């Protein structure tokens, strides 16, 4: 945030900067340890610690174990209702996906700038959400072709469609199927990016109002902006959870298509 110049620069927070090893290279490509990598490592560490604390398998579970089992049960339940009994073996993948996105979204919202850190939302980069979406999409393709062979293409002709209609429906369904990884990755990336831009702009209003020379500006501009920002932050916490849920839900729906066809 460029408070001294008075100009709000909401895109600066998404900049990826190398922290260690600016000159590390493999085949001409930089492999520096960036702030994105740091926050991904922090996310991974947080998920790991969370799971470690709750996997003691006590007969009478404590609070922590109930929390972990709640998340696991939530994902398993989602797979059971959307895929059926065959979906159980995808629980580890969907659970890891859900937990990683959820923790990445939440950790990106932490106000570490108060103690001098540079917050970074991992899921605000299309490269990361895109890779997650491609991972889901490849699993769908692999499972679909391994299970049904070329019969998998019957997914693009809904049951009951015959003759000339099938010729029209097939390309439409095919294109809508191929658009899935884009919509999956884009949704998460844009939702988080938009939220962070909104919060940054409102925070800029608060700080610029406090720094202004005229005394009346602070209560008229900064105070309403601060109250609005409080509400928007709560909304963003909701969005962080909903987007993680939607990503996991859509992944399980696409898996359902691959496993059960229609």
């Amino acid at each position: 945030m460029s408070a001294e110049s008075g100009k709000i620069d909401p895109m600066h927070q998404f900049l990826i900067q190398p922290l260690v090893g600016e000159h590390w290279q493999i085949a001409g490509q930089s492999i520096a340890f960036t702030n994105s990598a740091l926050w991904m490592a922090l996310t991974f560490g947080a998920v790991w610690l969370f799971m470690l604390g709750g996997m003691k398998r006590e007969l009478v579970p404590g609070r922590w174990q109930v929390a972990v089992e709640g998340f696991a049960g939530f994902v398993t339940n989602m797979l059971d209702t959307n895929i059926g009994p065959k979906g159980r073996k995808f629980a580890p993948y969907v659970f890891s996906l859900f937990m990683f996105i959820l923790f990445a979204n939440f950790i990106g919202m932490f106000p570490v700038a108060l103690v001098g850190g540079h917050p970074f939302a991992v899921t605000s980069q299309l490269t990361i959400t895109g890779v997650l979406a491609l991972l889901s999409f490849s699993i769908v393709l692999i499972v679909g072709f391994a299970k049904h062979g070329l019969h998998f293409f019957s997914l693009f002709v809904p049951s009951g469609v015959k003759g000339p209609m099938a010729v029209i429906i097939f390309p439409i369904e095919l294109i809508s199927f191929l658009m899935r990884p884009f919509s999956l990755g884009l949704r998460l990336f844009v939702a988080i990016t938009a939220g962070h831009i909104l919060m940054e702009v409102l925070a800029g209003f608060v700080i610029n109002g406090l720094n202004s020379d005229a005394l009346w500006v602070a209560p008229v501009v900064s105070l309403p902006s601060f109250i609005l920002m409080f509400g928007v932050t709560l909304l963003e916490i909701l969005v962080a959870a909903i987007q993680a849920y939607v990503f996991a839900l859509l992944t399980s729906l696409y898996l359902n298509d691959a496993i059960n066809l229609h």
Partner: protein
Amino acid sequence: MDANAAKLLGAGLAAIGVGMAALGVGNVFGSFLESALRNPAAADGQQGRLFIGFAAAELLGLLAFVVAMILLFVA
């Protein structure tokens, strides 16, 4: 018209799409609540479908936001 001014105008026009998505998302949740209150017993089983509808409606609004951002920062 100045090219820069046209970009800014286009980004502002793209913001209409975000408002349209607000109508769509409101419609999804409103319709769900309306029917959930008529048959609360069946409401819990439909939450997955609720969020699928929400995700589909929201995506189109987010695409409008992407158009605005591309106009502002890329084009």
